[in-house]
């Protein structure tokens, strides 16, 4: 193998070991598999891959995401010999997001955001992509290095964010959703030991959903996606998941290895995954990306005129061993990069957290914390100091410190560190090539045992704090058990996973909901969750503005906890703008919650208290920052989208108008939205939204009454009046319009009538409409009756008679509940019917047979429930109708029975016959009247009943009594019986009164005769 490579990169031993390895592998392949062909070929190909990647003049630095080993090697590599340019896997345009990195506390995520993307499927928007960064990742070390060493340039070379979305399957569900679903699958898959997810108390703070529906990207992702491969790998390695395998078999051993070995091992593992570990689809996508990256690298080298030896290419190990033809700087094959779409991308930084990263990428929980502890262990063992992005705050502090103490004391340790970092690092495993690495058992850093012991002590302490019964005996048991488990799983030393298992075995007795599980305690012990923060300076202007404006509340908005804001607005009116802002933020979905206080039309805030979580959920604020410069602007935009969107309806536009009053207090915008609502209402064909529109309009009109009605609401009301009046006949006949909607339409018409008249509407339009209504539905018929009553086309008596008729006719009886239901709906627009409703209901309860009454009762409750406030008047009326105490019961009778004696005959026929009967007493009789008189004489029962009811003596000539009771209608008979009872009970007090004061009777007679 020809080697023309840099001495630092290419240890000559690797060539030697490679040759040795090759021979060994051939022998092994021959020994294990029958013909040695397949396995041998695979192993050979893997070794070739390693050789090929090593031979590339641009130094390829293979990494894995969040791998402390990669980070350590990166750190040492860069310190040993800084390159002129670092090409890194990562969306090339994301580099724009890195500006504010120095003001952040990690982990944070670089974000690309496109609020509008017409060239992508519409349900994908807004497009959102995050690439999280943790401090112990190789990419962070590289970024930090480039920031502190301006002579080294950092270039992202992977496909742009736009291409990420372009290359996604366009037909599938929105990308973020898909990711989330698959994550959930992962979680249920691991539910065996991962029940702790649900148990986690709210106090612990679950930040898993921090990234929301964003698409996640990680630099150096290498997960096996081919399930069968993964299953075999896990089974043989005796681990539960891939991360554990990686930590145990790659991460740990390479942590202390030398650079050449590290590279070779990563190449080898990358090659293994590349060849048999991933699905075909992923393989194709990877190849595409690699073409892209190499094209960019060659371009970058050419344009900067840099020799390939002065560059480092940082990429996932899986890409380092790519078999594509376009691989490398020496290839002749070029590849043209496809164009981007016209989508406008915005870039920024959002805070991230370990949990969020784990959730996003489906890592087992606690994974990142373990990586962090390994990183710290490695740093300590190798005596290295990590690179950090120069923090603005820290620099300031250092400045102050220096000013305070000018005499800098040189610490001996620091000197030692400065003197000998490189040799110690390089000698850690110098001389050991890949071959040796593969044949020698992994070494462990000596401090491991001490660390395990400390964990055992700490976990027991933490468990005690969490109300577990744990003692020193448990510490010993955990330590011992961890050792046994490691031995059982063929490990020389317990891994963090073994430790976790041991702790669970020894400590967890019962699962108590609300208590932290031992697994969770272990994770907290190993580092727990860590929440990143984006510094004020790096925030978008909108977020900065919010921070400034909320400063008056004196909250610590940087805190990761929930902050409580107490506002006495009456006492300190200067707090009102802050309150307004909080309401706006809440409306926009930022993490603030009102605990006390409300915002309704016309409400003047006095005192409010809020839970502000902005520090913890910074991302929601940052996301808003992409949409505008101020909260108000974003709010206006959102409201306009709501009202002017393609599928906006009158009710949504009206809601937007209402919200604009509540949150923005801008007359201009409200007017605009209101006019839009009017316009939408005019075009609406159905009455589906009528209930909601009615409620809103009523509230709005009510609100504006006090401050003067603006033109738009007047316009809306008059339009609504005309529109709904026009729709009325159709709605009565249309089966698709429910009685409730119809009632809402009429409610709109009748309650807003006065206002509509002032705007030039006329009642005649309504009268015509009502005249045309021909409902079939019983509920609608009842509604029509109510409407007719209001406009004076129907008398109360007629209405009552109608209902009594319904009850008396056995064929109509089953439909009575429906009629009643419709009638009750009319309560919403006319309280006048309350009394009648109570009366009819009371009658119904008395008269309806059980088989109709009992099934109806639940329905009645359902009908009455939405009436809300109207129930009170109904109940009040009912209270008047019934006796107050037991004492009143014997002498009690219904108010309507007392007040309306003449209408004793309950059916319309009876009413008319009574009228006719009275008239019969008058001397002049027409032809028809005479006929009627004859009829009455033939069937005198009704008149008898009436007379009896009135308590006067029957004055029939003897021959007229003959046919009594012969053919009297059922209803009449019932009425008569009722009357008889009444008179028997009260010993005809009415009769006595009537005899005393005949004037009433005379008036009644006159009245009846008039009809």
């Amino acid at each position, binding site marked *: 193998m020809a080697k023309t490579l840099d001495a630092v990169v290419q240890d000559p031993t690797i060539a030697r070991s490679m040759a040795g390895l090759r021979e060994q592998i051939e022998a092994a392949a021959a020994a294990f598999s029958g013909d040695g062909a397949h396995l041998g070929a695979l192993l050979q190909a893997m070794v070739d891959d390693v050789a090929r990647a090593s031979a590339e003049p641009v130094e390829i630095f293979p990494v894995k995401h969040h791998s402390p080993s990669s980070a350590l090697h990166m750190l040492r590599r860069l310190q040993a010999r800084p390159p002129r340019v670092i090409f890194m896997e990562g969306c090339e345009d994301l580099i724009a997001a890195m500006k504010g990195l120095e003001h952040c506390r990690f982990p944070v995520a670089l974000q690309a955001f496109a609020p509008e993307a017409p060239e992508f499927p519409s349900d994908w928007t807004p497009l959102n992509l995050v690439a999280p960064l943790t401090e112990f990742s190789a990419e962070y070390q590289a970024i930090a290095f480039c920031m502190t060493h301006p002579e080294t340039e950092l270039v992202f070379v992977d496909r742009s964010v736009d291409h990420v979305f372009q290359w996604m399957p366009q037909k599938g569900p929105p990308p973020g959703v898909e990711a989330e679903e698959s994550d959930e699958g992962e979680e249920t898959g691991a539910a065996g030991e991962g029940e702790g997810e649900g148990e986690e108390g709210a106090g612990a703070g679950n930040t898993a959903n921090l990234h929301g529906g964003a698409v996640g990207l990680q630099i150096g992702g290498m997960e096996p996606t081919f399930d069968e491969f993964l299953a075999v790998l896990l089974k043989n390695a*005796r681990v539960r998941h891939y991360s554990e395998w990686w930590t145990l078999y790659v991460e740990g051993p390479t942590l202390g290895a030398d650079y050449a070995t590290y590279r070779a091992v990563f190449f080898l593992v990358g090659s293994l995954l590349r060849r048999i570990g991933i699905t075909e689809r992923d393989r194709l996508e990877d190849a595409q990306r690699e073409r892209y990256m190499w094209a960019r690298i060659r371009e970058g080298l050419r344009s900067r005129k840099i020799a390939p030896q002065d560059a480092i290419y940082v990429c996932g190990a899986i890409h380092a061993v790519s078999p594509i033809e376009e691989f490398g700087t020496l290839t002749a094959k070029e590849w043209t990069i496809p164009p981007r779409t016209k989508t406008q991308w915005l870039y920024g930084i959002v805070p991230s957290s370990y949990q969020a990263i784990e959730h996003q990428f489906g890592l087992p929980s606690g994974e990142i914390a373990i990586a962090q502890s390994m990183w710290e262990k490695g740093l300590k063992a190798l005596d290295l100091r990590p690179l950090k992005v120069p923090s603005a705050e820290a620099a300031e502090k250092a400045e102050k410190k220096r000013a305070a103490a000018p005499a800098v004391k040189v610490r001996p340790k620091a000197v030692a560190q400065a003197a000998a970092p490189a040799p110690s690092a390089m000698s850690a495993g110098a001389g050991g090539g890949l071959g040796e690495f593969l044949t020698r058992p992994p070494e462990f850093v000596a401090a491991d045992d001490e660390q395990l012991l400390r964990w055992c002590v700490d976990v027991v302490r933490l468990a005690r704090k969490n109300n577990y019964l744990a003692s020193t005996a448990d510490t010993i*048991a955990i330590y011992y*058990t961890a050792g046994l*488990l490691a*031995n*059982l799983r063929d490990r020389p030393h317990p891994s963090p996973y073994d430790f976790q298992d*041991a702790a669970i*075995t020894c400590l967890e*007795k019962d699962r108590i909901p609300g208590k932290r599980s031992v697994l969770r305690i272990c994770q907290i012990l190993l580092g727990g969750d860590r929440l990143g923060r984006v510094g004020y300076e790096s925030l978008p202007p909108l977020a900065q503005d919010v921070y400034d404006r909320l400063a008056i509340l004196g909250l610590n908005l940087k805190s990761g906890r929930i902050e409580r804001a107490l506002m006495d607005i009456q006492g300190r009116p200067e707090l009102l703008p802050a309150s307004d802002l909080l309401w706006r933020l809440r409306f926009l979905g930022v993490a603030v919650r009102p605990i006390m206080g409300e915002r309704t039309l016309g409400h003047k805030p006095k005192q409010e208290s809020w839970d502000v979580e902005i520090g913890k959920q910074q991302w929601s604020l940052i996301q808003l920052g992409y949409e505008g410069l101020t909260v108000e602007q974003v709010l206006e935009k959102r409201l306009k989208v709501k009202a002017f969107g393609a599928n906006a309806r009158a009710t949504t536009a009206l809601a937007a108008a209402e919200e604009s009053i509540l949150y923005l207090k801008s007359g201009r915008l409200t007017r605009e939205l209101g006019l839009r609502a009017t316009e939408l209402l005019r075009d609406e064909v159905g009455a589906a939204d009528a209930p909601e529109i009615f409620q809103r309009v009523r509230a709005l009109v009510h609100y504006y009454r006090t401050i003067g009605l603006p033109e738009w609401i007047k316009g809306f009301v008059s339009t609504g009046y005309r529109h709904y009046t026009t729709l009325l006949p159709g709605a009565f006949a249309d089966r698709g319009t429910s009685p409730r909607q119809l009632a809402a339409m009429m409610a709109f018409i009748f309650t807003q009538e006065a206002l509509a008249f002032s705007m030039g509407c006329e009642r005649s339009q309504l009268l015509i409409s009502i005249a045309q209504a021909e409902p079939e539905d019983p509920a609608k018929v009842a509604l029509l009756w109510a409407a007719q009553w209001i406009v004076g086309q129907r008398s109360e008596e007629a209405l009552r008679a109608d209902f009594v008729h319904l009850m008396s006719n056995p064929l109509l009886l089953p439909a009575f509940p429906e009629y009643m239901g419709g009638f009750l709906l009319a309560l919403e627009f006319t309280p006048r019917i309350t009394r009648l409703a109570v009366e009819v209901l009371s009658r119904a309860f008395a008269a309806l047979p059980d088989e109709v009454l009992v099934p109806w009762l639940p329905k009645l409750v359902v009908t009455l429930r939405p009436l809300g406030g109207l129930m009170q008047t109904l109940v009040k009326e009912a209270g008047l109708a019934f006796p107050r105490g037991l004492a009143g019961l014997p002498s009690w009778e219904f108010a309507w029975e007392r007040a309306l004696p003449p209408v004793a005959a309950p059916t319309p026929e009876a009413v008319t016959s009574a009228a006719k009967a009275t008239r019969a007493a008058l001397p002049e009789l027409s032809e028809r009247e005479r006929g009627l008189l004859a009829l009455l004489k033939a069937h005198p029962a009704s008149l008898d009943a009436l007379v009896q009811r009135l308590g006067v003596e029957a004055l029939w000539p003897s021959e007229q009594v003959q046919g009594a009771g012969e053919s009297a209608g059922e209803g009449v008979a019932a009425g008569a019986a009722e009357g008889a009872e009444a008179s028997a009970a009260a010993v005809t007090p009415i009769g006595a009164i009537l005899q005393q004061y005949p004037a009433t009777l005379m008036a009644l007679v006159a009245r009846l005769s008039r009809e």
Partner: protein
Amino acid sequence: MAKKKDTTTTSEPETAAAAAPAASATTGTSASKLRLPAEEKYAEELAYLAAADQDVKPFSWRLSPRMIRAFILGSSAQDKLDRTINQKFFGDPSLVERAIVTLASDRGLLLIGDPGTGKSWLAELLAAAICGNSTHVVQGTAGTTEDQIKYSWNVAMVIASGQSRESMIPSPIMTAMVRGEVGRFEELTRCSSDVQDALISILSEKYVAVPELRGDDGVIYAKPGFTMIATANSRDRGVNELSTALKRRFNFVTIPIVTNNKRSEKEIVLFRTRELMARNKIELEIPPTMLDILLQTFAELREAMASASSDEARLESALSTAEQIGVLEDAMLHSNFFGGQTMSAETLARSLIGTLVRRVPEDVAILNKFWHAGEASKSGPKKRAKGEPEEKPAESKGPEWEAFAAGGKKALGSFK
């Protein structure tokens, strides 16, 4: 100390041996024993593993933890054994590892799980692998007394010759102590708390004092290797709560119901049913579609029960894998003796209903609802994407499903 059951016959029919893989060579016979304990059933495997074992063995264990692992979970390439050992317990490997490790420490092991999750089977396997004797069992009931845990007296002998070691009747646990073997306690939480607490001194001091005896006989010490495996039913939680002192002396290992891994569940069901069939010398092929129907129905039932809002709407049965085996066995026996040697979907449905209905009006109502809702969803467009076996297209379930549904309806009808 390992009492090898002297074998008299080896005339096991070859067919049965073929149906039950790896269970063929037996030390005891199924002719003399209805059910062989694990150590006899797998005697050959255990002997092989003991011979191949190179590792350090804790106490007087017969196998090292790694070999026990291989015995229970099956061998993998890493064990470097030159024959395959079949998997006997299907479940999370880390769970078994934790159990083995617990036994190697000085704490007892308490296996908790829903009924039918294989707690007792795991306990038996562990005991068989560790000491070659899984029969030191105390069954916890409401009537269990302290005597049954410690010792009692042979009254006749006491009257005749006074209290001595000879007139004492040791409990299975005491026997295990004396021999340095594994004592098992089934359904620990069924017996009352004060009886449970008799275990505290056994587990911590590792001896039982017998005040009736004097001198050296007065204390009975446990030999190295003695440990306890107890099982407890998670449905019994709260009936007899374990005392804190006892909890401390046990490590708890919770065995979940295998719900999210259909493949392994299928393996378990097949494995166990074949074993049962071999015992009954039944030759009956289980049609793969029947198995799929069974698994699918159970999966759907579990889903339905999980989403049910109250206990009223849930079946009393835990719907564990053991119940599936029960259903399949029942169907098999029925079709073997009363059917035409083939298992029909109707039989399966009848067995399923028969097994799951425990409370007559309630369970029937629940199953009735499920059965008809299930019908609707099956004919509808709902497609179960995850874990659906490929050979069965989801949209047209085939005639077996229809027969199954019809059989179920008939069986449900017979309850009314």
